[in-house]
């Protein structure tokens, strides 16, 4: 019986894209989750081919921050945390399964290097993790909390929205929890379904008092995370988990920060402004090339990077120039952050607009498992939207 059980488990292991609920030690939730046996059917192979919906575009090697090292996104996070623990004796890092390195390997080696009192597991309770982090920060520590998946941040919603965001304001600045940073894996991975795919930034964007930051790659991740940690306001740092392994860049080994609330123009263009953050930046970069090649349309690509408070100046300036705006995110379109950008741009740039602002986003459904290839705002949907804007 026992052998049969083992067989069954092995069978499942090789045939299914199972992760269980929340992966463990060596998961990337990227390609690793979709483990296929050599004899898998062509159907499954086809499924895998359709899984990669973007091509990662690495940043140029940064020269201004000293020597660099090849790192993927999770390693650049570890590196940033390492810098923080080394330079700030009050810094503590905690969350579910953080001690052994975290289910996405972002804290590997840090407990051994800095001690059990600085890098530790908490009981399994997100409201506890954030509440604990607020308290630690209010008492003077640098608190870096990990929520295992952005999809599981909601038990902490009250602590974030009613507490972290309002600590300074309600106390007349007697108390604050600005030393709190909440990190959490975010976004789709190809097979995460309802509860391992969400992009909940819009919920928190409705909440003055916190900052929300989402990087597009390893260099950005390190600089922005260190900026969040240094920032004197509570920050939520969402990490595109599909990029943990897939995104590799030369990352400076020393500490450096990239300013918050500053969007970045990645590619200049004259006909359409494309705005995204996180993984979707890479989709739009490809779309920009497609538009150039197939339509002769010149796109300006902007990575918003900070969702709250966001850089409307950079976006509006670009739209004044191009007259067209497309915003794209994986989260459902209704009430998504694209709606906020869109209405601000409409107010600021009404007379410059040549076509209605286009939002290419997730549908107004939960994030579906087997329908993910149809759900996501992929390059073809974005490309088509550009075509329609140009022909408007």
């Amino acid at each position, binding site marked *: 019986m026992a052998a049969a059980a083992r067989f069954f488990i092995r069978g499942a292991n090789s*045939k299914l894209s199972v992760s269980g609920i929340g992966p463990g030690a060596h998961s990337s939730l990227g390609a690793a989750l979709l483990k296929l046996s050599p004899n898998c059917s062509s159907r499954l192979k086809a499924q895998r081919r359709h899984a990669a919906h973007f091509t990662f575009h690495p940043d140029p090697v940064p020269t201004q921050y000293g020597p660099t090292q090849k790192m993927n996104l999770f390693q650049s996070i570890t590196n940033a945390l390492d810098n923080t623990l080394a330079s700030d004796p009050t810094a503590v890092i905690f969350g579910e399964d953080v001690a052994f390195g975290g289910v996405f390997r972002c804290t590997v080696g840090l407990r051994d290097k800095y001690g059990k009192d600085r890098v530790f597991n908490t009981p399994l309770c997100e409201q506890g993790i954030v509440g604990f982090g607020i308290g630690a920060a209010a008492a003077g520590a640098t608190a870096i909390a990990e929520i295992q998946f952005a999809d599981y941040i909601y038990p902490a919603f009250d602590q974030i929205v009613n507490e972290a965001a309002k600590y300074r304001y309600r106390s007349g600045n007697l108390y604050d929890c600005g030393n709190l940073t909440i990190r959490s894996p975010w976004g789709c991975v190809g097979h995460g379904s309802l*509860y391992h795919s969400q992009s909940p930034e819009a919920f928190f964007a409705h909440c003055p008092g916190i900052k929300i930051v989402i990087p597009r790659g390893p260099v950005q991740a390190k600089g922005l995370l260190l900026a969040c940690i240094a920032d004197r306001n509570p920050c939520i740092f969402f990490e595109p988990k599909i990029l943990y392994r897939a995104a590799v860049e030369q990352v400076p080994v020393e500490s450096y920060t990239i300013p918050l609330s500053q969007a970045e123009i990645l590619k200049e263009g004259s006909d359409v402004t494309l705005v995204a953050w996180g993984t979707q930046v890479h989709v739009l970069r490809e779309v920009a090339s497609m538009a150039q090649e197939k339509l002769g349309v010149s796109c300006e690509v902007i990575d918003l990077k900070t969702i709250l408070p966001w850089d409307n100046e950079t976006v509006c300036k670009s739209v004044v120039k191009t007259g067209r705006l497309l915003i794209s995110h994986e989260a459902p379109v209704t009430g998504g952050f694209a709606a906020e950008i869109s209405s601000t741009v409409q107010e600021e740039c009404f007379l410059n607009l040549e076509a209605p602002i286009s939002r290419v986003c997730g549908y107004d459904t939960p994030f579906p498992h087997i329908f993910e290839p149809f759900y996501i705002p992929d390059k073809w949907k974005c490309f088509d939207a550009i075509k329609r804007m140009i022909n408007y």
Partner: protein
Amino acid sequence: MFSVSIGRGVARLPLSANETRSLLQAATQQKTVDSSLEKPQFPGASAEFVDHLEFIQPNVISGIPVYRVMDRQGKIIDPSQDPQVHPSQDDVGRISFYMTNYGEEGTHIGSAAALEPTDLVFGQYREAGVLMYRGFPLDLFMAQCYANADDLGKGRQMPVHYGSKDLNFVTISSPLATQIPQAAGAAYAIKRENMNRVVICYFGEGAASEGDAHAGFNFSATLECPLIFFCRNNGYAISTPTNEQYRGDGIAARGPGYGMLSIRVDGNDVFAVYNATKEARRRAVAENQPFLIEAMTYRIGHHSTSDDSSAYRSVDEVNYWDKQDHPISRLRHYMTARGWWSEDDERSWRKQSRKTVMEAFERAERRLKPNVELLFTDVYDELTPGLSRQRESLARHMQQYKEHYPLDLYEK
């Protein structure tokens, strides 16, 4: 046969159902103030005054004992506790399928067998055996895991998120512990129907740390819900060992704090689990109150297929449970000793199971995925005008960009 803890005290008394009920009633009724008595009159507790300062020790009782029926070799220790099972073809057939949750099979089958099929199950995700026991076909397990067109959940969730309306098994949800207060609400509704049903709610010792667990325990006790909380304490929550999860005496020790009857059982002893669940069920229905069963077991498998547990526990530790104290081995010893099972049975059963499972894998793999329109249904009871527009826009888009979508894998 239950050790009962009542109210806020830590007395452990063997009590009859009636005695327990009246004591619990006494403990739960709001008192009227009587200032003539030299007793505390605070509405929040019934107790005596003391005049020496003493903190209550965290473990007042020195470890809640673990109820078992069989020893590790499968020998019945006290014949009066033998549930007197008899083999039938049917049982053997069922057992063959409950093996996906390695090391914890005893908790699944022992508890499932003690329930009525109409009892409502709220699971966590590591209770496939419960659903199997109720007769969920292998092909439907596979359909769910492959998210194919036969999946009752319409391909929307990750593998192991089973559900069955017919079998009274509420669909699994990934966010931990959310089912615990829901189970209390369901038990309350069921109580009012008065149909001799209970709710059983499974969860891990890790999930028990969530705020929702507290809410569920407290609601079910105060609202007198016929509910069995079944905690699978398997030693780990992914990599987190129990001593980083709690510092009290496990989950059973929390029962008294909520005014809830509690027991700890050897989860690798299928008969102990069966007896405890059966008695808890009987009393939960009869007395309308929740019971807490903490089944001690061990997660022999990795947390999931993407976990490598050697990063946080030793192979020796895993081997001990696999080789020395496995629920299936224990049952096999028991059955072999009675001549109900033999090496030959074992061999041919393994061969047959392997074949059955492989065939089911292949069938599930070949099957098409569900129709893409199902992306939009069930968000609400009816398709809203907005969703209907989104569905049409996707259809138009796919018409135009067909070659970029794996449409041939999906039902038309």
